[in-house]
């Protein structure tokens, strides 16, 4: 692997002028099946290997997950940090940083064919001779755009739907189960926003979390993946004594900002899909029955339901 097609040292990274681009070798050898360790660095190493061997990928899959029957003999690519770094840097000759980030997001999307999508996009970008990020007529470009968008939406959702609970030792704790692996994407937001409190956001599906200790945010794992089952299962004994009150107040607030005359559950669910409700405290069962504020008198019999029953004031 001594010869690098992405040699960043010989080509200034920022100078994206076509003249400075390397000629991308034709992938003229017999296509191969590649296997890697499932990390992003691993995938970048695979890209390196593809051009090194001039052999296009039939498939790129994490070791152990390789499908395709008995006859597939995948090339095991060992992750090489240096090669990965060179590829990562080299990509900037063919795309801007934003487009490159989209490739990383595509990886985090956990789509079964994400590796090939990334390869095809990178290959197209290298051969196009110009920026392809707006080449929407190309299926692959649109796919990357869409995945990046979906990732962005999921990131945005998690920034919205995280519900912290305060524990006795002052830690703000939340559990999430996002559709995609978005913890790396939300770290910056929460670090900026909650700078004066310790917090932990745990992805229960992927068994790891983000922990901020008032100085920095780190990725944390727990032995044997043993984390509380759900957010409310941080057992009541370790919660701050005021925590139940704030949950109650938030639920009361949620119930009272609703305008029953405008009820539209379809819209409600479109914005807040059912699968997220599990960790949203406002969607948990009420301990007390909801008592609407009965300020209003029905305009006329048979009018819309204005809260429950007749007005208190009559």
């Amino acid at each position, binding site marked *: 692997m001594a010869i690098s097609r992405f040699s960043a040292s010989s080509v200034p990274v920022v100078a994206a002028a076509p003249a400075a681009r390397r000629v991308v070798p034709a992938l003229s050898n017999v296509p191969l099946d590649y296997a890697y360790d499932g990390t992003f660095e691993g995938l970048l190493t695979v890209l390196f290997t593809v051009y090194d061997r001039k052999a296009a990928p039939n498939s790129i899959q994490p070791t152990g997950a390789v499908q395709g029957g008995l006859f597939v003999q995948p090339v095991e690519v060992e992750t090489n940090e240096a090669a990965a770094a060179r590829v990562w840097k080299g990509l900037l000759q063919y795309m801007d940083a934003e487009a490159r980030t989209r490739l990383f997001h595509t990886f985090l999307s956990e789509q079964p064919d994400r590796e090939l999508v990334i390869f095809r996009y990178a290959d197209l970008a290298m051969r196009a001779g110009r920026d392809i990020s707006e080449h929407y007529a190309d299926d692959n470009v649109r796919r990357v755009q869409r995945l990046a968008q979906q990732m962005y939406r999921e990131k945005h959702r998690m920034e919205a739907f995280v519900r912290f609970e305060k524990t006795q030792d002052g830690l703000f704790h*939340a559990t999430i189960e996002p559709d995609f692996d978005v913890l790396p994407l939300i770290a910056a937001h929460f670090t900026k926003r909650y700078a004066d409190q310790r917090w932990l956001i745990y992805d229960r599906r992927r068994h790891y979390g983000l922990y901020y200790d008032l100085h920095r945010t780190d990725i944390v794992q727990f032995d044997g993946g043993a984390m509380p089952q759900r957010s409310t299962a941080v057992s009541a004994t370790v919660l701050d004594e005021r925590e139940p009150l704030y949950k109650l107040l938030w639920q009361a607030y*949620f119930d009272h*900002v609703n305008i029953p005359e405008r009820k*539209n559950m379809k819209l409600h669910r479109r914005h807040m899909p059912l699968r997220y409700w599990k960790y949203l405290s406002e969607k948990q069962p009420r301990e007390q029955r909801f008592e609407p504020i009965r300020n209003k*008198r029905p305009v*006329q019999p048979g009018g819309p339901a204005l809260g429950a029953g007749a007005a208190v*004031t009559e």
Partner: protein
Amino acid sequence: MNDQRIQEKLSILADAAKYDVSCSSSGGKRKNEDKGLGNAEGMGICHSYTEDGRCVSLLKILLTNHCIFDCAYCVSRRSNDVKRAAFTVDEVVELTMNFYRRNYIEGLFLSSGIFSSPDYTMERLVRIIRKLRTEHRFNGYIHVKAIPGASEELIQEAGLYADRLSVNIELPSEMALTTLAPEKNYEEILTPMAQIRDGIIQNKEEKALFKKVPPFATAGQSTQLIVGASQENDLQIINLSDSLYKGYGLKRVYYSGYIPITDDARLPQVTHPPLIREHRLYQTDWLMRFYGFQADEILDPAHPFLDLEIDPKLAWALRNRQVFPVDINTADYEMILRIPGVGARSAKRIVAARRFGPLSLDHLHKFGVVLKRAKFFLTCRGQALEKRDYDEQTIRRQILFGSGSVRSALVTQQLDLFAQAS
């Protein structure tokens, strides 16, 4: 805090505040410096959605629903027999901080009934936000309602701490205001509005000159109009909004379909809030702010009401058939944006993607263009998708009732309501 009492207060004062529609927390630019709590960066986050599908972004409450005024359309009006409550300054501060720390909200939206006097009320609002900003180093979003009639100094100080200041116009004409809110007048509303506008302008100028200038309502000001409580037509409403955007530099005008909350004889007896009308007004507002439409292109004295069946962009296109069809491979962005069924994002994509080669109809579909709608108004490489030349009524019918016709969840819901009512 007495737990039970605070819950009751929150219920009453959130309930009383909920008819104010503005919930947006966008446009805030407040960094979290020195490790305080919170930030507001451009796009606001909706942390939850009510069952009526509205965004819950801010803790939206009244300081109190006691009020010395008697505006007919308002639940909190003096003559209404309702439960009253008032928060203390500290209660609002505590609630805001604790909701924010749990990631429930983007910040606070504080308004109030007029208790004792406008200044007395405004002074308390200012005290709350001062405390949040200075003692608690809170950098989340704050939107405060300026109380009509409050002194200039208090409004000025509120502007130092709030990201957005607003004064609700409520009624689209002075005449309606005199009948329905006898203690208020346009002047009292427009004066603080002008003051906020001038404060914002002055602040921008000072910022250009000096390094360290305290912020003043950096996210701008907004207002709300109640629609359907008085007789104005859509043309009057849209003209008013237009002059507020242009004359007072407002960031947003919100439209609130009047919800029957009283049987006051001064008010129309309606059974359903005019949700579609409200929706069409928002669409029109949107066309003026982002699609380059002028108010008089959408409505004129001959057509003073918006078409409830179809959106204003389609209505405009049907009245202006002479400018269509538009060719998507050659037309300007501005024209492409005017094709019904083409949104801002697809228009941008079209203009970007055609640099790589001519686009086909298949591409349009993939870019998210609603072809059912757009097909009557565009050509692609010189070819029309709809060979026949339909008249206005036919296009209308096809779009509304044709197979796969597109209708928003809101319109469908409202049509269901109509069906039930009749």
